């Protein structure tokens, strides 16, 4: 056998035991039956919900047996009943729609400016020198403290609420985009240089993909903070929205309405976060990071 042939067979000998299908199979454990796999995955699927279920059950029992004051701590079933009533009236949908609208518009405005400014500051030292200090100073202003100012300037309409949401999500997105870009491996940038990439190609094919994991962290965090800012903004002078629903509940001393509003907040927030997580998993499939034991 010539050296050439040996090399060829050695190449394949090395490749053989590393077929990706084999690797994938090895990673997910040996092939199991459907029931076996279900049994194996069951704890992972249900364990995260064990604690909430236990808490809800004890709460239900406490409220129904009179152990807790049913007016101050209405049973979960009462809250659901109130929610159902509100849904039938159509009020729930109006409030949810109003809140979602403010959230989405505010996030698009704030998130996009966060990505654009963060990218500019991350890419260009001159932009960093010009902008970063100002942004960091502005960041220390508690944005909820801006509410009176926003109301004085813009009144009680949609604008102050959207501005508040936009402000809240701007900072996490900005900081993470900036840091994500600065964390891109210099050695990969050099590969772009080797292939004579211009600035646009370098940004789209090296810098942004490299920064994407951290940009996603910023987006998820930003969405969460924006959701909080939204509640606060709606507690003050709104005529629709989930915050308004909670506010109404308080003014008529209906704890069940307050709780129903909070519940919708939590569910919608969790749903949107799950959507972002799905997008994240699809876009960052290539990642080789630690995922926990």
């Amino acid at each position, binding site marked *: 056998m010539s050296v050439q042939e040996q090399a060829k067979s050695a190449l*394949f000998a090395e490749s053989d035991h590393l077929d990706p299908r084999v690797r994938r199979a090895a990673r997910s454990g040996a092939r199991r039956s459907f029931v076996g796999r279900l049994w194996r995955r069951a704890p992972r699927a249900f364990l995260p919900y064990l604690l909430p279920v236990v808490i809800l059950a004890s709460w239900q029992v406490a409220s129904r047996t009179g152990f807790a004051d049913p007016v101050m701590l209405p049973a979960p079933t009462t809250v659901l009943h109130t929610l159902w009533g509100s849904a039938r009236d159509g009020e729930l949908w109006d409030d949810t729609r109003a809140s979602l609208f403010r959230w989405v518009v505010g996030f698009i405005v704030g998130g996009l400016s966060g990505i654009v400014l963060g990218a500019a500051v991350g890419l260009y030292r001159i932009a960093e020198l010009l902008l970063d200090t100002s942004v960091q100073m502005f960041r220390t202003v508690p944005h909820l403290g801006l509410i009176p100012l926003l109301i004085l300037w813009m009144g009680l309409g949609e604008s102050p609420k959207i501005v508040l949401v936009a402000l809240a999500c701007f900072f996490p997105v900005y900081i993470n985009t900036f840091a994500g870009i600065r964390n891109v491996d210099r050695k990969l940038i050099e590969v772009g240089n*080797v292939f004579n990439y211009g600035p646009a190609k370098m940004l789209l094919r090296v810098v942004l993909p490299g920064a994407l994991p951290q940009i996603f962290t910023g987006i998820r965090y930003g969405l969460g903070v924006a959701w909080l800012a939204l509640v606060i903004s709606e507690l003050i002078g709104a005529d629709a929205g989930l915050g308004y629903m909670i506010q109404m509940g308080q003014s008529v001393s209906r704890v069940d309405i307050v709780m129903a509003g909070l519940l919708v907040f939590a569910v919608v927030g969790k749903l949107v976060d799950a959507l972002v997580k799905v997008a994240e998993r699809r876009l960052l499939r*290539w990642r080789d990071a630690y995922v926990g034991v």
Partner: protein
Amino acid sequence: MSQSIELDGFSRTFDSATGPVQAVAPTDLRVEPGSFVALVGPSGCGKSTILRAIAGLDREYEGNVLVEGRPVNGPSVTRGIAFQEHRLFPWLTVEENIALGLQTTKLERKRRVKDLLDLVGLTRFASSYPRELSGGMAQRTAIARALAPSPEVLLLDEPFGALDAFTRLQLQDALQEIWQRERVTALLVTHDIEEAVTLAQRVVVLRARPGTISDVIDVDLSYPRDRSDPRLDARRRQLLAHFGLVGPGRQAANG
């Protein structure tokens, strides 16, 4: 299909905290078109510095770097380079990584990538991500990526330095085959004497602090080469002797 490389009074000085440090003292070197030359030396001898200058990644040198008689003016697709780390883009698959430097039509790109996958023996891993590859496979992908735009010159900066000994030998054999098929001028930087002698037609020995060429050893044997060839052994011994690593007096010399 291949170009000559020439260093003419090339030197490079780096600034350090304690003042300027000369990494490479004025050096002349000529690499014939289509030949395989290895630069060998201990760390700090400036071998990677020379390679980066030829690649166009470093322009802060003095003297001239000429490729096919023309001064190097930044990176070019006519000079492919593979580094010690594979430097694959983790978000692209093997075939997408190989196609990075290709600026041809989609059809042509597909054909070229297919050829290269076959050349480096990774056809079945075309759509794998870098994280699914072994070190050897990743390095082969990196070499394929460097070869994709059909460069005239292939620069290799310790490409097998981070691999285990067994994989390294396999890839050395693969590289011989690749070099013969692609007919490029190959310049390999390595600190592995065995590797240099096995692969190159000419081994340029560098000394450190400051980096200078201290010897040139011709290995005029045909390819593919057999590691057990006694004629390779003679060259190997010659090189080891050069670094004071064989023969009598070695103990004394190393104190």
